[in-house]
C-alpha cells in the first residue's frame, strides 16, 4: 500500500454536490449483480402456471405432459408442495406482518382467489424448458361466483374507519352546508385506472438451501421484512435466513411486499434440492404482484367571490382484494393543501376477487392530487382567477384540517420561482387561445405534496487508522443512488474525504436498514449515520484524552497513538430487548411528532402541452418542477429522482392503464406493448429546481425526493389540456378519444 495516496485526500464540500454514482461503473458495465445474476453451479429455473379463472376450486391438475419433458425436475402443485405456515395476519403491532402480499398460502390450497394466481410451479434445467412444461399443464376448475368488476361493485363500497396510522376520513366544520351556500362552486367526479409499476427488472428470486439454512437473492424494497416473512413461512430460526438484495432494478413500491414468486422460488429449491432462479415473466409480474388500485373520486369546492375556499370535499372509492390489500390514502393531501373553512374527506373501499392492491409511487397522493388539482383549476376558471393566484389565496399558515404546524413549507416560494422561470405570465388565460399551426397550445400547473417519514435504521461505523471509514447498513439501492448519498452524508458528518468512505448495503447480514418506502430511506439512514458519527467523535475524544493526545488531532493519529487499528460504533440493535426498545421509541416519537407537525415535501409543477386539433393527440412539450425537498444530499441523483417521478406521472396522465376484463377479472394487457408507459418521444426536457433549505425537524433537513415528483403531474397535464382545448378530461388516462 502506498502512503502517498492519503495526503491527497483533502476534505471537500460534499453535501448537495452532484457527485457521480459510486456504483455507476458496475452498473453501466454489467458487473453489478442483480438477483437473477447469481449463476450457482447446478442452478435450476422455475416457471409459474397461473389460474385462468377468478374464483374456483381446482378439481384436477394434469401434469403428465409436463412431467415427461426431458429436463424437467419437478412439477409442484398443491398435491405435492411442502406444507408452509400460513401468512400472518397483518397487524400494525408487528410491522413485518405487513410484508405478505396476499393471505393465500400458495400451493397449499386448492382454492383460486384471483385470475392469475399461481397454481403450479415447474422446475427445469433451463427457463425455456420450464416455460414449455408450464404451458403443458392442464388445470380443471370448479368455478365459483366472483366479483371482479370495479364499476359494478362501486355502490357497495364501505366508508373506511380511522386507525392508528391510517385515517379513513375527517372533517372540519360543515362542508356540505358551506358548499351549498358558496358564491361559486364545482362538484366533480374523477376516475383513475389500475396501474402497474413496470420496473425494468421483473421480480426475480434466486433461492439456495444450504442444509437447513436458506439464502435468497431477491430484488426487494424491504430486506428485513422479507427475511422475517420467509423465516415464519418456512419455520426457520431467523439466523438461518439470509436475504441479499445488492441491486434492485427498479421497484416503485412493487417490491415492498413478498409476492408469490419469492415464496415459490424457495419452495422450488426445497423440493428439488437445487439452487433455483425464478424470474417472473412480464406477464407474471402483472398476474402475481399487486398494482395501484383504480379509483373514483369526488371533489367539490366552494369559494367566495374572491376565491377564498369555504368548502372542500374530497371522497374516494378504491379497491382491495379479498385476499389482502390496503386502503389507498387518496384524500390525504386534501387535509394539508388548502385553507378551506370547512373540510370533509372520506375514503371508501370495495372488495373484489382480485389480487391485493399494492403500493405504487406516492400511493394516494399521486391519484388524489389529480382530482384535487384539476378541481382547483376548474374553480379558478369559474372565478376568472389565475390558477396560481387561487392557490396563493388559499395557501395556509397552519395545517388546514387541525391547525398543526408545518415543519416547513416552501410552496409560495416554489410557485413564485417557477412562474418566473417558466414565464407563466406569457400565457393568455382563455382556453383554446394559443396555437402553433395545427397544434393547440396550453399550459397548466399543479401542486405536488408528499408526507415525509423517518423509520428506524441501524448502522455500524468503523474508522480505521489509515483513515478509511466503513458504514454498514442493510438499506436498498433500487436505482435512486442511495449508496452515493450515504457516502456523502458520512463524509460530511465525519469531515473526511469521499473516497475514504465505503458503504456496505443490501444484505440481511448487515445491521437492519429501513424499508425503501415512503421516500424515507435517505432521512432514516442519514439520521443513523449522523448519530454514529457523533458517537464516533465522542469516543475518539475520550480516547484522545486517555492517551494525552489533543482531540484536534486527525482521527487516524488518535487511533494510532492509542495503539488501535480501528474503532467501531453501532447505532440501534438488531435483536433482543434493544430492538424492541428501538421500535417502541420509534413509534412513540412518530406519534408525538405527528401530533405536533405536518412534515412534507412539496412542489409546483409547470407544463406546456400541445394537442393536435385534428386527432386529439397530446404531446407534453415543456416541464418545470420546483420542489421543496429540504436538504438536497446530491443534486444529480435528487434531480433524477424527481425527473423520474415526472416521467412516471406523464405515463399516468396520458397512457398507463391496466385493463381488467369485466367478466373474468383477468388483466388483458399484461405486457409492455399494450400497457403504454411513456417512450422517449413522449418526454420533453424536464427542468428541475430545488429550493434547498433544510427542514428543521428532519434528520439532516432531508424531506425525501422519491415520490413527490409524480404528484401533481397528471393534474398539471389535465389543466394544460383544458387550457389548450377547452375540454376537461376527468378520467385518466387522457387518451385522444376523450378529446375528439
Amino acid at each position, binding site marked *: 500500500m502506498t502512503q502517498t495516496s492519503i495526503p491527497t485526500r483533502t476534505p471537500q464540500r460534499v453535501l448537495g454536490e452532484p457527485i457521480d454514482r459510486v456504483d455507476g461503473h458496475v452498473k453501466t458495465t454489467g458487473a453489478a449483480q442483480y438477483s437473477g445474476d447469481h449463476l450457482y453451479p447446478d442452478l435450476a429455473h422455475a416457471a409459474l402456471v397461473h389460474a385462468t379463472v377468478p374464483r374456483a376450486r381446482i378439481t384436477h391438475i394434469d401434469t403428465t405432459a409436463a412431467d415427461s419433458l426431458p429436463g424437467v425436475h419437478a412439477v409442484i402443485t398443491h398435491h405435492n408442495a411442502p406444507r408452509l405456515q400460513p401468512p400472518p395476519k397483518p397487524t400494525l403491532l408487528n410491522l413485518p406482518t405487513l410484508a405478505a402480499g396476499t393471505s393465500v398460502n400458495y400451493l397449499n390450497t386448492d382454492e383460486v382467489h384471483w*385470475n392469475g394466481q399461481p397454481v403450479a410451479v415447474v422446475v427445469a434445467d433451463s427457463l425455456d424448458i420450464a416455460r*414449455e412444461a408450464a404451458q403443458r399443464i392442464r388445470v380443471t376448475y370448479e368455478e365459483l361466483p366472483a366479483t371482479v368488476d370495479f364499476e359494478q361493485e362501486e355502490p357497495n363500497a364501505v366508508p373506511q374507519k380511522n386507525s392508528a396510522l391510517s385515517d379513513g376520513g375527517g372533517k372540519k366544520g360543515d362542508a356540505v352546508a358551506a358548499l351549498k351556500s358558496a358564491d361559486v362552486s364545482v362538484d366533480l367526479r374523477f376516475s383513475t385506472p389500475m396501474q402497474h409499476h413496470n420496473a425494468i427488472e421483473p421480480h426475480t428470486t434466486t433461492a439456495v438451501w444450504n442444509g437447513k439454512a436458506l439464502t435468497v437473492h431477491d430484488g426487494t424494497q424491504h430486506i428485513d421484512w422479507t427475511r422475517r416473512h420467509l423465516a415464519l413461512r418456512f419455520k426457520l430460526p431467523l439466523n438461518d435466513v439470509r436475504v441479499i438484495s445488492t441491486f434492485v432494478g427498479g421497484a416503485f413500491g412493487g417490491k415492498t411486499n413478498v409476492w408469490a414468486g419469492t415464496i415459490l422460488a424457495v419452495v422450488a429449491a426445497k423440493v428439488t434440492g437445487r439452487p433455483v432462479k425464478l424470474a417472473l415473466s412480464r406477464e407474471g409480474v402483472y398476474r402475481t404482484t399487486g398494482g395501484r388500485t383504480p379509483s373514483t373520486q369526488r371533489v367539490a369546492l366552494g369559494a367566495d367571490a374572491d376565491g377564498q375556499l369555504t368548502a372542500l370535499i374530497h371522497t374516494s372509492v378504491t379497491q382491495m382484494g379479498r385476499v389482502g390489500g390496503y386502503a389507498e390514502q387518496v384524500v390525504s393531501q386534501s387535509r394539508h393543501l388548502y385553507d378551506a373553512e370547512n373540510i370533509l374527506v372520506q375514503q371508501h373501499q370495495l372488495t373484489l376477487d382480485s389480487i391485493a392492491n399494492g403500493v405504487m409511487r406516492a400511493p394516494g397522493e399521486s391519484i388524489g392530487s389529480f382530482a384535487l388539482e384539476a378541481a382547483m383549476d376548474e374553480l379558478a376558471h369559474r372565478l376568472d382567477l389565475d390558477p396560481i393566484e387561487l392557490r396563493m389565496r388559499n395557501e395556509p399558515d397552519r395545517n388546514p384540517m387541525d391547525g398543526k404546524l408545518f415543519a416547513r413549507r416552501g410552496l409560495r416560494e416554489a410557485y413564485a420561482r417557477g412562474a418566473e422561470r417558466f414565464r407563466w405570465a406569457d400565457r393568455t388565460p382563455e382556453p383554446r387561445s394559443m396555437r402553433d399551426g395545427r397544434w393547440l397550445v396550453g399550459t397548466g400547473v399543479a401542486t405536488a405534496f408528499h408526507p415525509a417519514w423517518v423509520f428506524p435504521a441501524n448502522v455500524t461505523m468503523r474508522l480505521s487508522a489509515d483513515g478509511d471509514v466503513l458504514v454498514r447498513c442493510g438499506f436498498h439501492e433500487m436505482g435512486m443512488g442511495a449508496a452515493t448519498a450515504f457516502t456523502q452524508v458520512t463524509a460530511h458528518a465525519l469531515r473526511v474525504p469521499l473516497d475514504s468512505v465505503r458503504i456496505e448495503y443490501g444484505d440481511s447480514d448487515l445491521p437492519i436498514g429501513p424499508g425503501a418506502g415512503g421516500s424515507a430511506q435517505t432521512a432514516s439512514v442519514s439520521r443513523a449515520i449522523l448519530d454514529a458519527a457523533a458517537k464516533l467523535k465522542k469516543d475518539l475524544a475520550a480516547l484522545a484524552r486517555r492517551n494525552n493526545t489533543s482531540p484536534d488531532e486527525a482521527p487516524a493519529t488518535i487511533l494510532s497513538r492509542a495503539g488501535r487499528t480501528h474503532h467501531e460504533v453501532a447505532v440501534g440493535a438488531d435483536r433482543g430487548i434493544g430492538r424492541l426498545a428501538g421500535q417502541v421509541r420509534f413509534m412513540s416519537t412518530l406519534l408525538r411528532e405527528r401530533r405536533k407537525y405536518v412534515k412534507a415535501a412539496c412542489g409546483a409543477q409547470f407544463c406546456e402541452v400541445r394537442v393536435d386539433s*385534428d*386527432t386529439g393527440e397530446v404531446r407534453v412539450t415543456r416541464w418545470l418542477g420546483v420542489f421543496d425537498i429540504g436538504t438536497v444530499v446530491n443534486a444529480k441523483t435528487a434531480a433524477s429522482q424527481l425527473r423520474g417521478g415526472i416521467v412516471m406521472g406523464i405515463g399516468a396522465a396520458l397512457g398507463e392503464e391496466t385493463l381488467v376484463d*369485466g367478466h373474468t377479472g*383477468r388483466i*388483458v394487457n399484461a405486457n409492455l406493448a399494450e400497457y403504454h408507459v411513456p*417512450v422517449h418521444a413522449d418526454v420533453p426536457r424536464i427542468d428541475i429546481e430545488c429550493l434547498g433549505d433544510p427542514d428543521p425537524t428532519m434528520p439532516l433537513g432531508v424531506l425525501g425526493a422519491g415520490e413527490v415528483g409524480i404528484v401533481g403531474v397528471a393534474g398539471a397535464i389535465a389543466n394544460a389540456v383544458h387550457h389548450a382545448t377547452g375540454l376537461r378530461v376527468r378520467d385518466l388516462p387522457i387518451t385522444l*378519444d376523450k378529446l375528439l
Partner: protein
Amino acid sequence: MRRFTYVTANTVTDAVKTKATTPNAKYLGGGTNLVDLIRADIEHPDTLIDITRLPLADVEEISTGAVRIGALTRNSHAAAHPLIRTRYPVLTQAILAGASGQLRNMATVGGNLLQRTRCHYFYDTAAPCNKRSPGEGCAALNGGYTRNHAVLGTSRNCIATHPSDMAVALAALDAVVETESAEGNRRIPIEDFHKPPGETPYSETTLGENELITAIELPVLPPARNSRYRKVRDRSSYAFALVSVAAALETENGRITNARLALGGVGTHPWRARTAESVLKGAPATESTFREAAEAELSTATLLPDNAFKAPLAVRTITATLTSLT
C-alpha cells in the same frame, strides 16, 4: 417455449421443397412475430425454416419501371432505400411508423405482411378466440375490451384489427405480392391477399400453405410521389395505430385527377378505401370534398361503444392528411 427443429434454406427451391416435405413447418423471417407467438403458445410449428439467407433481400427497379422489394428485405432497409423514399414516400413513412428501430432491423417485408393481429384475447390462451381456436367464441365480442378493435370488415366471429402499417401503404399503392411454391409462381394483387374474417377468421390470407413470398412489386405510380402516411396512436412512438391513413393525391387545376387512400387500425385487413376514392375522383380538391369522401368510407362502419371513436377519428385524419397533400 415449445421446442422446434431449426433448419436454414439457401435457395428458394430449397426453401419451398423443405417446406413441402416437412410436416408442420413454418418459414422464419425476422422472427419478431412468429417467435413471440410460439412463446405465447399460439403457434406450434415443429420446424422453422430460416429463409433470411435467401437472395431476396434487396430493392431494385425492373425493366417495366416498377420497383421490386425482395421478401427478405429488412423493414429498415426497405424504408431507407432511395427508390422507395423518392417514389413511394408513403411506404417509407408507413414502415418507419411501425414498431421500433430494433424490430425494424430484424423484420422482413414478407413477415410484415403476414404478422398476426394484436387483439388481447387472441394473445391470451385463457380467452376464447375464433381466430386461434375455430368455433371457440370471441371474448372481445362477448363484452370484452374492444377499444383497439376494427370497425370495418368485421364479422360476427371476429373484429380483430390487422396491425401492419406497411401493408396499409402497400394497399394504397396497388402492390402485387409475388410467390413461389412447388406448383409454380403467382402474382397476387395486395387487395386479394388479406381476407376479411367472415366465417373463417383463422384463415387470414389467400397464400397457400407452402407458398413462399418472394417479392412485393410496386407499380409505376406517379401520384405516389405526393403521398403521406399519417398514424394516430396512444403515444408518440412504439404503439399500434388507432387509425392510420395512407394517401396519395394528384390534382390538376384544383380538381382531383388521381387519389389513393387506404386505412389502418380500423380494418380487419389493410383497408383500401375504394368508396372514398370514388367520391374524390374528379371532385374539387377541397377540405369539404375530403370530409365527404371520408364520411362515405366510414358510413358502413360497425361501431361498438369502446371503438366508436375510430369513425370520427378516421374522418378527421383522412381529411387532414388529404388536405396536407394539396
